[in-house]
C-alpha cells in the first residue's frame, strides 16, 4: 500500500499538489505510488523559474533506471522555485516524495484551480488500492 496523505490534492497522472504556508504557493511532486512504480529515480529534469504553466503542460521529465516519465502541471501558474536538491540527490523522490522530494513550487492564481484535482480518496480509487 502506498502512502496517500489526505491533506494533498492529486492528478490521474500521479502528481500531487501540496499547500504551503503561503496561500498563493503550492508544491508539486509525484506520489508515493508513482515513485514506487517508476523505481530508482536517477535524473529529474525541471523547468526554469519564471516559466508560466497551463494545466497539463509538460514541465519536466523524470528518468528512472528502467523508465522515463513526463511530468504534467496539475495546476496553472508560474514556476517560482525548483527543488535544486534533486540535482545532487534525485533519490529524494523515492525516499520522501511528499517532503524533500518535491519538484517545483507554483504561484497559483486562485485556490479554485485546486478543485479540479482528485482528493486522496479519489486518487486511491484511481490507482486501485
Amino acid at each position, binding site marked *: 500500500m502506498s502512502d496517500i496523505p489526505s491533506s494533498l490534492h492529486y492528478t490521474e497522472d500521479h502528481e500531487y499538489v501540496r499547500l504551503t504556508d503561503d496561500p498563493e504557493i503550492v508544491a508539486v511532486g509525484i506520489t508515493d505510488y508513482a515513485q514506487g*512504480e517508476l*523505481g*530508482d529515480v*536517477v*535524473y*529529474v*529534469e525541471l523547468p526554469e523559474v519564471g516559466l508560466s504553466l497551463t494545466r497539463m503542460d509538460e514541465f519536466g*521529465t523524470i*528518468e528512472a*533506471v*528502467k523508465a*522515463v516519465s513526463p511530468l504534467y502541471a496539475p495546476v496553472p501558474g508560474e514556476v517560482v522555485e525548483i527543488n535544486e536538491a534533486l540535482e545532487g540527490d534525485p533519490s529524494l523522490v*523515492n525516499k520522501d516524495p511528499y517532503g524533500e522530494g518535491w519538484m517545483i513550487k507554483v504561484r497559483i492564481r486562485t485556490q479554485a484551480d485546486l478543485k479540479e484535482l482528485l482528493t486522496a480518496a479519489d486518487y486511491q480509487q484511481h490507482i486501485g488500492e
Partner: protein
Amino acid sequence: MTDGLARTPFHAHHVALGAKLVPFAGFEMPVQYPTGISREHEIVRTGVGVFDVSHMGEFEVTGPDRNAFVNRVTCNDVGALAPGQAQYSAILTDAGTFVDDCLVYRFDDKLMLVVNAANAVKDWDHLVARKAGVNVRLKDISPEVALLAVQGPASEALVQSLTRVRLDAIGYYHFDVGPVAGADCFISRTGYTGEDGFELYFRPRSADAVWSALVGEGRAAPIGLGARDSLRLEVGYPLYGNDIDDTTTPYEARLGWIVKLDKGAPFTGKAALQQAKTRGVRRKLVGFVTDAKGVIPRHGMDVILNDRKVDVVRSGGYSPTLKQAIGTTYLPTHSVTPGTGFEIEVRGKRVPASVVALPFYTGGSVKR
C-alpha cells in the same frame, strides 16, 4: 495483465517478497524487489544475489550424432568442449545473422542448449527443421528445469556452504553435477553479470528447498530482471532483441570469437560469414556514453551521425556502477574509434554521445 502468463517454480516466493511482476517472454517475472534496481545491482557487484531465470529454454540433445548435429546448428566448436565444459555460442540463419545466442553444455552422454525464453519456440523449430537424416533425439526439457543464477563476489562462499562438491575445482565455463541444499544440480560457473557466480539447474520439485537455502538475511538477496539488464549492459554482454537479432551478424556484434570457420564441419550461416569475413563488415556494435544532463538513452531512440540516421539505440540505460548514462548502437566501421562523436534523438532534442571501448565496466569478480 497476467492472463495466460506462465509462472516459474519460484513465483510464490516473488509474490511473498513483494516483487514487482511483469510479463516477460510469456512469463510473469520479477523485474525488481522492494530493494530497488540500483541497490540490487550494487549487491551483485559487491556481495551475492540470486536471480530466477527459470524462463530460459533448455533443449537436451542425445543420440550418437549429437555432437555433429549441434556443431552443424551452432557456430562455435562443440569439438573443443570436453565433457563438463560449456561454451557461449549462437544459432544462425543462412545469412549468418542471429536466430539466437545460446550456451552449449557438453555432458558424457548428452548436450544441453540453453536459449532465450523469447526465442525458444523459434529455436526449437529451427533445430527440428535441420534434424533430418541425423541420429539424434531432441527434447525440450524447459518445463522440467528450475534455474537460479547465484552471482557476485560472495557467491562461491554461499554455494559452497550448501554443497560438498568442490567449487574451487570448477573453472569458468565448466560445470559439475551434485547436490546443492539436497537437490541434484548441474552447477555451472557461468553468468550474465560480469561477476563470479554459478548457474544452478535442478528439478522444479526442489525449488523451495534451494531458494530458501540461498535467499535470506545473511545469505543472498533476490535480484530482478531490471538489475540483470543493467549488470549485463555494464559488462557489454549482448541481449537478443537489442544488441543482436536476425539482421546482425556475429562479426558486426564483435562476437567473431564464437565463430569457428575452421572447426572442420559445415554449419548454418558459414558461407555467409566466410564472405563477410573476407569482405569486412560495414558496421560494428559500439558502446557509448552521453554526458547530457537528465538524459538516458533508451532502446529504439534514433542515432544520428553526420546529420544522418544510421541506427537506433540498441541497449541503453543508466549504469548504477559508473553513475552515467550508457548504451550501445551500430555505427559505420570508419566511425567506431573511441572518442568519435555522434548524436541521439531524445524527445525531439539531439544530445551528444561519444563512442567508448566495451565493456563499460571491467572491475567484476568473474574468474576467466
